[in-house]
Each structure stands twice: as C-alpha cells, then as structure tokens.
C-alpha cells in the first residue's frame, strides 16, 4: 500500500520490467529519451544506466498569471505524450488543469506530495507572480507569491515553464500593471531552470523533466538559466533559411517572390539572430513545422522582454527614429553653428591681420 502511494519507491527499470517491457524495449525508450533530451546517440547507454536506477519524481505544477498555453503545449507533446510522461517519467501530483481533484481535495494532494517527498520533489511553475497586489491572482484564497514560497520551500528544484514564469512574459510587458515578476526573482535558494518560450516547445519541457528523472540533476544552463542543450544555439544559426541570409536574399513582404522562394525573413523583422531556442531543429506539432518554416519571422518569444523589443516586424538593430528627418534638422543646426564658428574664425583672422605690426630688421631680437 505504501508502495502504491509512493511511486518513488520503485525504480523506472523495475516498473518497466514489471509491466513486461523487454530490455530491447527499454533501450528503445532510452533512445527516444536521449533524443528528447537532445543528447547525442552515444549517450544512450549512459541514459539507460541511469534510467535503470531512476525513480519517478513527484511533480507539483503551479499555475499563476498565465494563459494555460504552456499546459496546452505540454499536452501536445508527442514524444512522450503527456500520458507517457505522467505514467513513465513523473508522478504529477498537482496540476490545476489536468488533475481530477478540485477544491480542498486538490490542495490536500499538493500538501501530501510536499510532505511525502520533502526535499525531493520538483516544482513546475507556469505564469508570472504579481507583486503589485497579491490579490491580483490567487488560488484557493492563497496568493501566488505565498503559494510559490511555501511550495518551493521543500522542493529539490524549480522549473519555470514558459516566458511568463521564466522572465515575466506578457504580464511583465510594459507598463506591467500587476508588477509581475519571474520565478527566479522570488526563488533564490533553489535551483531554477527556465524553460522559456511562449509557449515553450513541448519536447523541451519533457526533456528537462526527463533529464531530472534520468540523472537526478538539472541540465547545464546558460546565463539566463535555460538548458544549454535546447537553448545553446540561436534560431538564426540553425535556421534552414540561413544560406539565403548569407547570400543577401530577403523576402520583402509576406507574399512576394522572395517569400514564395523561402528566402530569409530578416527584413520582415525576424528575431532569429537574437533568439535562443530549439525550434529550428525540434520544430512543433510532431515535427510538422515551426514559425520560420511556415513563413513568419521568429518573434523571439523565448527571450526576456520579447514583447517590448519595438515591434515584431522591425529588425532589432534598426533605430526607432526617423533618421533622415532628424539628420536634416541636425545638419541644418550644424550649418548654422558651423557658419557661426567659421565667422568667428574669420574675425579672429582679420583681427590678427589688423593687429599686425610690421616686422622690421630692428625687431628680430627678443628683448629680455
């Protein structure tokens, strides 16, 4: 009975074997897992070795100021499916949207999971936390901040899923009426992984969870706390349209010849060069496509403040101002000032000429 209630007692290897999965099947599972974690195929045996001993961690999923897009994304995960995920990888003990329990039963489940897995459970957060007024977002009468703080207290690590949780996201966009902040601005004493994206790629969410399951640790992170394996390269660097960029072939509008030929979308405001994510390789919807492949530039949704970078259709480096008009005024002002400076110089010149005392042979010497 205790075993039933605490799924972490059994290793993944044991539970798979018990359910009649062969070693070959296990290896297949490991290959898929390695691929999901974006690990090289040479890592499959290491993955297998770890997974053999791995225990399904308890996961508590908290949703704050969010749109449920992240959960929607997760449920679109095909590798593994969300069912696989829950059955094979984790014990999802609390999730607003997915759990059957509701009301006080739901909160009781959360508290039980926290109690039973003290120090070992994983907290997944989607959505930002309003600091402006705790009342802006509450669950069961508990403010987001309070719930986060008490849930995280006994957690092993926190995964901030989606750009809202990772960087504040849309609620944080100017002028940020709710005073929204990211998870990492509140949680300072636990490791926080940011799985940014609006929404994040489902495989990336599951990949991070799988990594925690497999190795019992968090993956290597970049400077923004994102897993390197998924966020280590820019969209631009892995974009199949990159050769067009290098050749200077750009679509000018969304329906011109260049757009039909699949040329680079840089001029249409693509944020690929500044955006780090795995879209270009992992793609979306069972590998069907991704934004650039469907003909629209990257919005940079996995980057901090992507909402405030001055328009989705403007290139990042382009100045906002009307340069030609400003330059005209400025040059006009320059001409006026320059003419004045020039006139001063002329005056100095002619004043010197008028002050000129003829040099004669009698005043070649300096008298001291």
């Amino acid at each position, binding site marked *: 009975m205790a075993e039933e209630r605490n799924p972490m007692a059994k290793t993944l290897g044991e539970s798979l074997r018990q359910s009649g999965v062969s070693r070959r099947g296990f290896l297949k599972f490991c290959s898929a897992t390695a691929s999901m974690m974006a690990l090289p195929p040479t890592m499959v045996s290491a993955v297998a070795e770890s997974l053999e001993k791995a225990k399904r961690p308890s996961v508590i999923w908290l949703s704050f100021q969010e749109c449920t897009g992240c959960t929607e994304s997760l449920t679109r995960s095909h590798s593994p499916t969300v069912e696989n995920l829950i059955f094979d990888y984790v014990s999802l003990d609390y999730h607003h949207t997915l759990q059957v329990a509701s009301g006080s039963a739901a909160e009781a489940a959360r508290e039980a999971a926290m109690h039973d897995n003290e120090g070992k459970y994983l907290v997944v957060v989607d959505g930002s936390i309003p600091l402006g007024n705790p009342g802006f977002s509450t669950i069961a009468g508990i403010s987001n901040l309070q719930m986060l703080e008490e849930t995280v207290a006994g957690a092993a690590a926190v995964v901030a899923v989606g750009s809202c949780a990772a960087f504040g996201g849309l609620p944080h966009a100017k002028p940020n009426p709710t005073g929204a902040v990211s998870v990492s601005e509140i949680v300072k004493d636990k490791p926080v992984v940011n799985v940014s994206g609006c929404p994040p790629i489902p495989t990336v969410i599951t990949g991070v969870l799988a990594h925690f399951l497999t190795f019992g640790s968090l993956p290597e992170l970049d400077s923004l706390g994102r897993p390197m394996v998924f966020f280590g390269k820019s969209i631009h660097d892995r974009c199949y349209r990159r050769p067009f960029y290098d050749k200077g072939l750009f679509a000018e509008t969304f329906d011109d010849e260049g757009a039909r030929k699949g040329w680079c979308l840089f001029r249409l405001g693509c944020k690929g060069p500044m*955006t780090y994510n795995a879209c270009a390789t992992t793609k979306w919807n069972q590998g069907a496509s991704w934004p650039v492949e469907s003909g629209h530039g990257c919005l940079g949704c996995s980057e*901090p403040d992507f909402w405030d*970078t001055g328009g989705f259709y403007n290139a990042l480096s382009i100045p906002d*101002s009307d340069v*030609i008009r400003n330059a005209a005024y400025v*040059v006009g002002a*320059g*001409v006026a000032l320059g003419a004045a*400076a*020039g006139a001063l110089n002329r005056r100095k010149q002619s004043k010197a000429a008028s002050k000129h005392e003829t040099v004669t042979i009698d005043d070649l010497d300096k008298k001291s």
Partner: protein
Amino acid sequence: MSTSVDFLLWVRGPGFDIALVVFLIGIVIRLLEVLILGRKPDFAEPRGAELGAGLRTLVTRTLPEQGSFRRSPFTVVGGYIWHIGFFISLFLFIPHIELINATIGLSWPGIASNLVDAVAAVTIVTLVAMLFSRMSHPVKRYLSGPEDYLTWLVTILPMITGYLAYHRMIDPYPLALGLHILSVEILMVVFPFTKLMHAFTFFIARWYNGAMAGRRGVQS
C-alpha cells in the same frame, strides 16, 4: 536599464539619436570651420590649372609614393588592410546594408557573411599590430598622444564588439548587439573632436595640396 533588452532599446533609440546629433553637427561645424577660413588670393601668374591637379592629387595620394612605401611598408600595408577591412565590414556586411536601407533607404549588394567575418578578423589583428607599431616605432611613439590611443580604441571597439556579437561570444545577444551599437555610437561621438575627422577633411587637404602644387606646374 534593468535588462539587456532595455539596454538595447536605449542604444538604438535615444542613444543613437544623441550620437547622430553629435556626429552630424560636429562634422558640419568642423568642415565649415575649415572651409570658411578661405584662402588669400594668389596673384602669382599660374603655370598650371588648380582644378585638374587638385582632383588628381585627391586620387593619386591613395597610392603611396614609392620611396615612402619602401621606407615604411608596414604603415602603408597595415593602413591599407585595416582601412579596407573596416570599410568592407562596415558597408558590405548584409545586416549593415539592411540597417542603412531601413534608415536612409539606400541599398547595395553585400558579400557573404563568413567572408566579412574573415575580413573583420584580419582587420582586428591588423589594428592590434598597428597599435604595437604605434607604441614601438620611434616616430609614431613620439608623435602619439592620448588622442591617438583613444581613436585607436574607439575604432577597434566596434570591430571587436561586432565580431563578438556575430560569433555570439557575449551573452545574451541583445547585450552583444547593444554593446556593438553603443561602440559605434561612441565612435560617432568621438569622431568630430579627434583626428578621425581626417575621413572627411583629407579630401580638402589633398585638394589644396594638389591645387597649390598644380598652380606651380607640379603634380603633387
């Protein structure tokens, strides 16, 4: 200025506007300051025409005089490499062309980015070598003051930040891009107040030199 994106937004917004104002006003003032001074009339009977000789010198000074080349090949070759490299990086790198196109509507074909990358690397190395030369060559060391080192720094900074941004060696990218733009803005702000002005005034200088010599019947 809490995040790198805020920083980027500032450098490409108000920062750029400030730099542009200083750059343009500064250059126009400097040029007018020079030109309005004028020249005294020359009553000596000319042997040759000023115009043709002046224009020719404008072009011919681009090539070094043979003897100077033999005596200071490093200065000449290094100067060529980094100037050309700088201009290739500035004007033939596709994102720069895009920027110019987006701001003033002029466009021209660029070259492959990896080629620009190689050119930029060579340019940076050459600029470093030029600095060593400035610090070690007796004449250059003697002539050099803080301004010479400052202008070197503000010239190499956009090259380095551009290189780092292109290779994503600064994280996060908006910070890299912001630093690159900022370094260019520093260059623009410093420009009118230093010897960097030679990029504009050398036209005037060469013309006067050629014209004055041409008047005497010598092609300088």
